[in-house]
């Protein structure tokens, strides 16, 4: 991983905010964790009271009012007794009036708190996404540099071999001539190979520009796969594609969705690194959209870990190999466009991540390039 330590510290600070707001909404979260959260020791609950706690207090207050009113009414009824005048209604009406007066601002406050929470969460993930994209660009760059160094090494040896032959003297011999021609041809082959590799980097840069609102899933999966091709090959991972043709375009930006696919494929790759296996990419139409599955034949995810894998910074990988950001960011990205991200896995039986994405509206937008 190529995370700058300053960037990393920032991420760690952010997870604290995230965790405190999540902790407020689900009381059981944050208790009894065993696995490692990258870079965060369990010390230090956030010092400032999280907005979530205020929210809970408000909801509680609002819920307590109706029972209080009922109690008042019952008391009034008892005090005045049956057969009395309708005067016993006075406190009841008064209580309801008080409740209405309270409920209105309280409800507004709840709404405010909720949007504040949602906004905070969005800001958190936007920032994570930005950071992780920088990190994965670094990864892609490093992978490409690696891929480029092999053809460079070959070209250097071919050129060196020609020099060796020239130093040897006899340049006219048929054998020497053939050797030189062969070396030159090989240099050309390696140049072509290098060109394809640099093309990938250019592709990455191009797709990163903010752009269209709808995406061809199959195309994007193939492009993403291309980025990891040599790494998959080196890890002994076979790729099987079950891509259904004629799918609807889906909602979402290509750079974000590519990040999702890249994260899922990298996880599959990591899971099978060393022992090899098969990664399956499957797509098919589903009610109003597309379903994508990325399956692997790795070791799977233990039951104890599976409930945590979507939490930021949860990772079972070594410190310099995993950040625990891939899945939470991916889930946030697909949920933002109205999709879902889920997983099925059993220990020892591989993992299957599925993404659903709603079809993009075919807006008659700018008019240019309409398909």
């Amino acid at each position, binding site marked *: 991983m190529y995370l700058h330590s300053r960037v990393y510290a920032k991420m760690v600070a952010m997870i604290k905010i995230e965790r405190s707001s999540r902790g407020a909404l689900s009381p059981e979260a944050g208790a009894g964790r065993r696995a490692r959260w990258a870079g965060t020791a369990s010390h230090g609950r956030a010092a400032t009271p999280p907005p979530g706690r205020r929210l809970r207090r408000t909801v509680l207050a609002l819920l307590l009012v109706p029972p209080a009113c009922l109690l008042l009414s019952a008391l009034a009824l008892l005090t005045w007794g049956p057969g009395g005048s309708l005067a016993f209604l006075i406190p009841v009406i008064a209580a309801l009036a008080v409740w209405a007066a309270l409920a209105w601002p309280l409800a507004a406050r709840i709404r405010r708190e909720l949007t504040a929470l949602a906004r905070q969460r969005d800001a958190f993930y936007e920032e994570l996404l930005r950071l992780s994209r920088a990190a994965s660009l670094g990864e892609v760059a490093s992978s490409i540099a*690696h891929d480029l160094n*092999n053809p*460079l*090494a070959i070209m250097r*040896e071919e050129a060196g071999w020609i020099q060796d032959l020239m130093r040897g003297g006899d340049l006219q011999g048929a054998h020497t001539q053939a050797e030189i021609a062969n070396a030159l041809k*090989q240099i050309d082959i390696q140049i072509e190979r290098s060109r394809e590799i640099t093309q990938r980097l250019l592709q990455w840069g191009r797709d990163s520009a903010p752009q269209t609102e709808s995406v061809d899933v199959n195309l994007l999966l193939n492009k993403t796969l291309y980025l990891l091709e040599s790494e998959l*090959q*080196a890890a*002994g991972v076979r790729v099987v594609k079950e891509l259904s043709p004629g799918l609807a375009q889906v909602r979402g930006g290509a750079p974000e969705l590519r990040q999702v696919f890249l994260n899922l494929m990298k996880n599959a790759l990591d899971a099978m690194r060393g022992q*090899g296996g098969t990664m399956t990419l499957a797509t098919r139409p589903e009610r109003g959209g597309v379903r994508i599955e990325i399956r692997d034949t790795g070791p799977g995810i233990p039951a104890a870990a599976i409930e945590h894998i979507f939490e930021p910074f949860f990772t079972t990988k070594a410190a310099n190999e995993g950040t625990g950001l891939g899945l939470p960011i991916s889930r946030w990205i697909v949920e933002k466009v109205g999709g879902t991200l889920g997983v099925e896995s059993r220990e020892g039986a591989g993992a299957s991540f599925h993404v659903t994405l709603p079809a993009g509206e075919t807006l008659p937008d700018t008019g240019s390039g309409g398909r």
Partner: protein
Amino acid sequence: MEVGMTRPIRLLIVDDEQRLVETLSKRLTARGLYVEGVHSGPEALAVIQARPFDVALLDVRMPGMDGIAVLREAKKLQPLLQVIMLSGNASINAAVEGMRLGALEYLLKPANLDDVLAKIEEAFKKKRLEEEHLASQRQAGG
């Protein structure tokens, strides 16, 4: 076993880039080394088990069995074999792991042949010293 300074260095090149192995072999053979080349980890181990080598030039990233795994096994088969790792990227992890397992050097591709040759000769010298040391120990012991 041959004696004297004239014995050629026995070098094994392990890299999944077949053309690299081929051309490096030609160039190093022309410089007086005895060179064998293989293209995968299992092939390398088979050859190392079959005959002795002085130095191995070992690629780190190979499909299936990677260079680190090969290094680990090779050292068990021939403890005196000197290993020079050759990698396409500067992975600190792989370098540290390689050194920990007894690799002598960690060179980056594309390496300069003169540098590679210098390292190979250095490795060979080191191996000769270790062999002599072992021999004298054995004499002293017996």
